């Protein structure tokens, strides 16, 4: 049968295109504009070509921030994913306590980022903070304002406190979808606790885990508010992550050209890593299934 060609449908997409243009494309283009030009105000621009990009790619400051950022995301993922799975496995499956636990778990996710930062900023202070003061009282030398390691620990623990719930709740949802018969069959097959996890729970959680890892990677890679409130990027530059560095550059030093180039590269890196990660994970899955079909 001959298919009718009709391009009128594209008009229906127009409203979305307009909204996206105003909300994303045009602001982004402004950044692009700054990235390729130099300006001294008054809306006067001078073509700079790839100069800012060149400067940024070779900037040691950016390399260091990127290194810290990558380390931070790696630590966050390494802690939050296993911990989230562990918490989800131990959450009550039904009854009164499951509701209580769910609410408790959801609480950190509902707190605004800067409030989380403030909570931990005060919590960790050695003079008035419960945590800081207690640590000092039992003789542990803890001070996140002048010890880089302490600052890192504080920021990491804060992120774990804030976001492990997300991983746990996603995993919990995955676990709840497993029919009881699977556990009964495993009992009858005399499967060990590890085998139940490995062959029943983990495969069923795979889909949500993929989402969880992706979300946690993106969020942690873009983290700004919480560490900024707690440490302001210090001591020194030790907790200056990419976003913090970017804001310093753009708003603090008013280096709009380099900051714009930096933003674009930052954006592309996140996009690229997320895409690669997602493609690899989904292809791995497909490859395994089709490999089976080949036999």
């Amino acid at each position, binding site marked *: 049968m001959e298919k009718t060609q009709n391009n009128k449908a594209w008009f229906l997409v127009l409203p979305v295109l307009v909204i996206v243009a105003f909300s994303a494309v045009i602001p982004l283009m402004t950044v692009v504009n700054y990235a390729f030009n130099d300006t001294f105000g008054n809306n006067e621009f001078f073509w700079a070509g790839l100069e800012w990009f060149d400067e940024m790619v070779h900037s040691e400051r950016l390399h260091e921030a990127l290194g810290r950022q990558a380390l931070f995301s790696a630590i966050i993922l390494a802690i939050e994913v296993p911990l989230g799975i562990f918490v989800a496995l131990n959450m009550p499956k039904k009854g009164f306590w499951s509701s209580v636990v769910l609410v408790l778990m959801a609480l950190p996710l509902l707190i605004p980022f800067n409030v989380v930062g403030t909570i931990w900023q005060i919590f960790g202070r050695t003079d008035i903070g419960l945590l800081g003061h207690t640590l000092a009282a039992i003789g542990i030398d803890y001070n996140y304002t002048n010890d880089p390691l302490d600052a890192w620990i504080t920021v990491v623990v804060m992120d774990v406190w804030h976001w492990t719930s997300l991983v746990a709740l996603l995993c919990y949802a995955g676990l709840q979808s497993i*029919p009881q*018969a*699977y556990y*009964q*069959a495993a*009992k*009858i*097959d*005399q*499967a*060990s606790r590890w*085998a139940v996890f490995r*062959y*029943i729970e983990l*495969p069923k959680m795979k889909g949500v885990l993929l989402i969880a890892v992706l979300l946690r990677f993106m969020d942690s890679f873009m983290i700004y508010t919480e560490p900024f409130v707690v440490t302001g990027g210090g001591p020194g530059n030790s907790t200056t992550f990419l976003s913090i560095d970017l804001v310093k550059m753009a708003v603090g030093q008013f280096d709009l050209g380099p900051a714009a180039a930096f933003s674009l590269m930052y954006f592309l890196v996140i996009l690229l890593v997320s895409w690669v990660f997602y493609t690899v994970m989904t292809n791995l899955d497909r490859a*395994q*299934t089709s*490999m*089976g*079909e080949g*036999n």
Partner: protein
Amino acid sequence: MAQITLKNLAHSYFPNPQSDKDYALKEMDHVWQDGGAYALLGSSGCGKTTLLNIISGLLRPSHGRVLFGDRDVTDAPTAERNIAQVFQFPVVYDTMSVRDNLAFPLRNRGMDAAYIKARVDQIAQMIGMEAWLSRKAQGLTADAKQKISLGRGMVREDVNAILFDEPLTVIDPHMKWELRTQLKQLHRQFGHTMIYVTHDQTEALTFADKVVVMYDGRVVQMGTPEELFETPAHTFVGYFIGSPGMNFLTADVQGNRATLPGGDVVGLGASYAPQSGRVQIGIRPEHATLVASGGLPFVIRRVEDVGRHRLLRGEVLGNALNVVIPEGMPVDGLPQVAFAPAKINVYADDWRVAPAQERAA
């Protein structure tokens, strides 16, 4: 392998059961012979799965004991009971290959690798999955997955019993027949005790040597398919087995005569002691026939042609009554229905009453 004894067994899902109603299983005493093929038949919610889970140890009974042979296993966990169970919906380990799925119960028990391979090959052949052994279980059809589940249930040779919980629900009708026949064959070959839960009477009657009919948390009859058909112990069995089920008429039974409310008399094949309570006579549609005179007036409401025979749905003295007649038998000019006296059973308060001679013997 062992004989399974249920001693004063009862189960309630409530912590403090008050009345009979609170019990999912009412008290029962039964012995399941070693090597028997049993079907547990009953409508949904009558306690079949509860009973099955108690035998396999997934559920601990609130009252009574469960014995395997002489050993009391009431408190023993599933793993210690050495039981295999196949569930209603296929349970396969998606990330494993079909071979690993079948080998899983054996590997968990630390069997020798060569033995596992041989045994898995043998089972795969039985369930017709040899060609799929190295494939991943993920993405297989429900049929294939359930075959794997069945295979995993049968892979261990030393099990005390194999329990099936409506295992063929998700299977296509033609496959159902094939798998059921295979199960029956396996039973003959290995002699495992098999307990098969179903609400499908055809499935139960073709699979089992002994059918256990459950109703409202009670085992109402345990017998061969023939016994269930000829002498149902409870009106539920009469109604549930057979298609359509048994006809029941309220009557007053004296000796070998049953008097219907309108004064009509039906002759019985045996004599009975006087009964109290609600007395009914039960007759299978297959044992009723149309006659010109000498029976009860029968009004035909509907005729259903079911191939080999015809099913007449009608009324006798205001009671619904079904009659099965052979194909080709004329209906016109036969306004009455007669019952084969020897095939009539008498029920008092839903339970079958044994005739006086039978009881004396």
